């Protein structure tokens, strides 16, 4: 019973094996990819392991506090920012091994030529609630 975040990057992850930009795929390949993602989420719902899945717009804004009584400062987007998160899936699984297995399956989503993208996904454990028994 542990939650993991499967993080998908626009930028910042090592290059995928089948690394063709999505706009160079055929429309059918795009549809097949989208369908694969939907089926994957539905399957995890079926196994009782799905928690959440969201996609993010590629462009965002950096914001920071600028002192009492002043509006926050905004900046960006920065083209040079190394990491750009594209979206995530949150899963609730029995073991780290199961999380790795699922991440591997998600990374097999089809891309150009209908072949798996072999995309690198980042797997991050959630911090949990503290246990009751401590000694």
């Amino acid at each position: 019973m542990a939650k993991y975040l499967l993080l998908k990057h626009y930028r910042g992850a090592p290059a995928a094996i089948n690394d063709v930009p999505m706009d160079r795929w055929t429309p059918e390949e795009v549809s097949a990819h989208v369908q694969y993602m939907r089926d994957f989420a539905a399957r995890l719902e079926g196994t009782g392991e799905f928690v959440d899945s969201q996609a993010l717009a590629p462009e965002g804004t950096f914001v920071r506090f600028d002192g009492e009584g002043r509006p926050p400062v905004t900046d960006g987007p920065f083209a040079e920012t190394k990491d750009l998160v594209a979206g995530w899936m949150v899963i609730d699984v029995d073991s780290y091994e199961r999380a790795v297995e699922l991440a591997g399956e998600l990374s097999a989503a089809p891309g150009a030529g209908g072949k798996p993208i072999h995309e690198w996904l980042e797997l991050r454990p959630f911090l949990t609630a503290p246990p009751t028994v401590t000694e």
Partner: protein
Amino acid sequence: MDEVLLRSLTPGVLAVLVRRGADFAAAEDAVQDALVEALRVWPADPPRDPKGWLVTVAWLKFLDATRADAARRRREDLVEDEPAPGPASAADDTLQLYFLCAHPSLTPSSAVALTLRAVGGLTTRQIAQAYLVPEATMAQRISRAKRTVSGVRFDRPGDVATVLRVLYLVFNEGYSGDVDLAAEAIRLTRRLAAALDHPEVAGLLGLMLLHHARRAARTASDGSLVPLAEQDRTRWDTRSIAEGVAILQAALARDRLGEFQAQAAIAALHADAPTAGETDWPQIVEWYDELARLTDSPVVRLNRAVAVGEADGPRAGLAALAALDDSLPRYAAVAAYLHERDGDTATAARLYAEAARKAPNLAERDHLTRRAARLNAGR
């Protein structure tokens, strides 16, 4: 209406349906439907015999559900030999339900979910909220679990250790939400102890009561963790401690030691000390030796190193620690503590910071970060 009373009746009702020949999954659904009905009807019209009412309504729900499908013929057979109460007692029924819900073919999370619903009588929504997953996910987890155990024969007890592990998980790994999982685990373990006379069941119940007794003292008003040595012991629940100790003593007297009794004994020794300084550490070390013998768990040896550090000084604790694998969870935290006690604040601060980076939960991380910060600030 007393929801706890209502929920305490569910395993018995479920067992009656299964005894009458309903398959487990369908029976469990029917009981849930009956519970929902009870919550609706009882406030205005409380029944004289709550359990009888639930059995009747759940049985009708079960018959309704099976009416339309291919099980019709089977249902008619069932109706004919309907009230065939088996020779088994209510306690036996409850017991078999515990075993079924903790069946070894289930993953830990499935066993936990099924136990909370079928034995605990919680709704799917409550369980989903308690474990921070969507209700649809939890519903699927439970129905898969029911399918997994649907072929298991409901007539003989299994290994009690599997049930205890599930109850321990409910107690130890809950989030703090609307459903108090620790209290729920105690309730379920208490009922198991009433149905099954077994020293390890008693040991687990004692362990839970002794740890639950410290609950109010374990977190500060800002939510931060308060370590055992710094807890305000006047806030410990003395009634819960007394009950836990009595249950443990009766279990230990039977001379069939197990890991939960040994863990409870350690908790009891802490509970027994009026101040942290008066803790009987040598005896705690002995119990850790027993526990290491019983479980062969590296985590136990890690905790033992802490106890050795208190009993024989931090150098002895560090020596005990040196024999262990430094990739163990919380190894750095233990090392930091022992170095701090040994007066090596620089090393301790560095290790606390490292431990904070590796902490598996936020409260622990914050606690360890504060320790590092305090040492770095020279306080």
